[in-house]
């Protein structure tokens, strides 16, 4: 797995490997803004105290594309695959894999699947009521 030198990214993908999505939340009084990807300072209030939280993994599809032409030989076996922007219930947006049959507005939950050099979150329809 070719990991980034960015410690936040290292932590994100390590958690994904173990089936979790993590994000940052600002600890400043009266802020509490979620932030993804995590950065050293809060985007909203510029506070420098952020804590890592685990997301519930449920959210809504904001947009979705189905990739038929992957960028490399190593990824051709997975095509076609869905890539979505998902609005997580905790209030942040992330890119992830998704079931290609999903449409915008669908309620989804995260699963975790092998893809290329790592395990990635893949959103599927949330069957729960």
């Amino acid at each position, binding site marked *: 797995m070719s990991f*980034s030198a*960015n410690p936040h*990214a290292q932590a*994100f*993908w390590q958690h994904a490997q173990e089936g979790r999505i993590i994000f940052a939340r600002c600890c400043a009084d009266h802020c509490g803004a979620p932030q*993804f*990807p995590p950065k050293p300072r809060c985007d909203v209030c510029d506070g420098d105290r952020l804590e890592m939280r685990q997301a519930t993994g449920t959210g809504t599809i*904001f*947009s*979705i*594309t*189905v*990739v*038929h*032409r*992957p*960028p*490399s*030989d190593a*990824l051709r076996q*997975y095509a*076609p*695959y869905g*890539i*979505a*922007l998902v609005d997580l219930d905790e209030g942040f*947006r*992330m*890119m*992830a*894999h998704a079931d290609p049959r999903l449409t*915008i507005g669908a309620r989804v939950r995260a699963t975790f699947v092998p*893809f*290329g*050099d*790592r395990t*990635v979150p893949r959103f599927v329809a949330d069957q729960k009521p």
Partner: protein
Amino acid sequence: MAYIAGVGTTRFGQHPGSTTSGLMADAARLAMEDAGLARRDIDGVLCGYATTMPHIMLATVFAESFGLRPAYAHAMQAGGATGVAMAMLASILVDSGRCKAVLIVGAENRASGQTRDQSIQTLAQAGHPDYEVPYGATIPAYYGLLAARYMHQFGLTQEDLASLAVVMRRHAARHPEAHLREPFTFEQAMASKPIALPLRLLDCCPISDGGVAMVITRDPTNATRVKVRGAGQAHLHQHISMARDWADMGARRAADLAFAEARMGLKDIQHLAVYDSFTITLAMLLEEIGFIARGKSGEAARAGRFEIGGDMPLNLHGGLLSFGHCGVGGGMAHLVEAQRQLSGRAGDRQAGAPTTAYVHGDGGVMSSHVAMILERV
């Protein structure tokens, strides 16, 4: 205000054996001849990056090999917006008195200088290295996400996108230097192979070899009198997952700054040259800037508004979608076509005698916007 005194384009397409340096020199020579200037007249050089020739100081490398000794030179990087951004800086340089004649160059053997996979992987790096690229995302995938959401939000359809593709190809058929000139039907566009749905092959620009150059001067150097009347930029995000308001990607903001500087409005524009890496790019830019109502770009294309005889002639060289895309030069070809149209030199493609044109460049994933307004004086 600065003049676009000379322009030059090489043929776009697959040119095995071509080099980035060679294409830069070919385009530069043509632009200088067009401007009627010699090497000693050029005192500024700006050039775009080249993915097949990465270098920390490409402008100086080019100046040395081409035989220039400018008083001002560096390369620039703003993705697909680089060309219009270079023209903007060149006009600032001549307006300020810093330079008299700035040569701007964008060229690359992007098609033959690397494999298709290499090109796709390099370009995908416009995405976030940690939170987007690892998902096997590509530039078409980022724009596929834009397309799906935009179509959902504003009612644009697959048919609308195909209509834009058909028009760009029809335009390119009239340009001897275009990469893709064989016309296709609406049905062929709709049935072309899926790339990153909803985007299909004919919604995507090709990867080309090619070069484009321009000379921007303080004073006229020949009979053409095309002035830069206004320019503006906006940069609201880099990565598509970070874009906050999808109805405000920055295109309108950049255009507003350009219009304010030019003391003009949308209604004063007679000719359009708008970045079109994908059909959705073109629709989103036209609609956000306000030339076309939201969701109505396809309808406008079918009504003939973007044709030579239409009320809004658009990308008459064929745009990135069919003239081709060699990187920085691809985004400069729009400027060149606008200059040729304004100076009445577009031959078979000439659309009347326009006096004003609007040009727009987009870098990344609707990330960097540079708008420019030209006028024949």
